[in-house]
């Protein structure tokens, strides 16, 4: 496997799995974020 191909697969892993990990962490924060977004009517 060439260096270009190795770099490509590393990028695919970072992009694919990295984005899923970030999204999962975002979902964990959602309940807290939604609590902050609940406001009394003005």
């Amino acid at each position, binding site marked *: 496997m060439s260096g270009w191909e190795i770099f490509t697969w590393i990028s695919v892993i970072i*992009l694919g799995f990295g984005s899923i990990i970030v999204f999962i962490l975002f979902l964990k924060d959602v309940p807290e974020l939604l609590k902050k977004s609940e406001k009394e009517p003005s």
Partner: protein
Amino acid sequence: MYSLATIDYIIIVIYLFMMVGVGIWFSKRHSNFDDYFLAGRSLTTPILITTLISTYYGIDVLFGDSQLAFTDGVVAWFGYARPTYAFFLIAAFLLANRLKKEDFRSLPEILDKYYGKKARYIGALASFIYSLPALSLYGFGMLGNVIMGWPPFVGMLILGGIALVYTLTGGFWAVALTDSIQFVMMCVVLAIAVPFAFNIIGGFDTMIEVLPIAYFESMGDLSIWLIIIYASTGLTILVEPTFYQRIFAAKSYKNVRNALVIGIFIWGSYDWVVTILAMAAKAGAIQGIIQANVAPDASLLTIMVVALPAGVLGLFMAGVLSTEMSTLDSYCLVAGGNVAYDFYKPALKPDAGDDELIQKTRWGVGLSWILGFIMAISFDQMLGLWVFMASILISSVLVPILGGLFFPKFHKPLAGQLSAGLGLASTIILNMYIMIQGTFVVAEETYVLHMGSLEIFQEYLMYLTVPISFMGYMLGIIFGKEKRS
């Protein structure tokens, strides 16, 4: 138009309904302007990553990077994409902390603090023009035509209209949450596409054999001047209004810093994958897998239509739509804020309450969308328009903003006014001149003005307008008086 399977259309429609649904779910009364415009300043690192990445990357990156990679190879990443990462680092370590220390809500407000209201109004105008969604809407027209067979203005109305609806109703909460869904779609579908693309062209080694050697030279045959120009487009990051909005909306400086640093790895990977997919398309064109005369900016979509199975292609198309929706919603909201918070409140109604500010922001969002729509259906050469809009912000606010943040001694109103005003005026005048008097050279994909033996490319104008802005700044420092507190 590409022919898609029924399942692909079903997936695209479900995605569109989902975006509207999220926006409407957040359609509620916001108790104050900070809540509507800055999500209550409570964004944590994960959501900052998702909204920063999905906002900053639109189809101009997806198709622009792929176009360059299709014609020139890896230089699209090394020479064009990579220099911008340095600016993300500068933003993370030098800029974000200073911005977060103050209680700003918008980029033009920074100019007000350091130079007074007149500088703010000029900055607001530059930011508003920069944020008009003309390119996004044009892109939606193209995507609607390619994916659904709609006439371009129908694609603009429907696809652009969906993003408008949830932005108007839900404000920054809707923008940030839809951005997060759009982020994971954009990234995952692109990652999934790679093995399919390699499979159809016969593997990575085949790509190396088939493509010219120059495709694997990191700087290609780009001239040093062009490399400098491409690198300097990264300067927009330092005065990018959507970046600033996210910095203001962050829970803390550390959240922003971490988001930008982690984001660099995802940005870099995204750019590299787009580059490789476009090179795979070139290999496919050479092998006759796709038509040899495919337009470079259509190459990515074309290879995906051929390589991806039904269902996965629908996800990919939804991912492409995500890429652009996440950009349009953010810029429209910033433009709305420019109208309400940076002009209406300080100039016309200083005692405007939060409800009124939110209402005026919505008007501003709608106004920016309409103006963007008019521009998208009126201009023939969108590339020329893109260069003009991209340069307007750098040319008018880069010098006074960075001067204000890093040189407190130079907070003289005249410096900010002249710097912003001369930068804005020179950008408008020179760009209009070259677009009227010059000719659009298809091979160079830019407007060119011939003056004797001299050829002036539209992209080079920034090398005039930024120094003009700097000269205005220096004149203001020399002749101006201190700002009265």
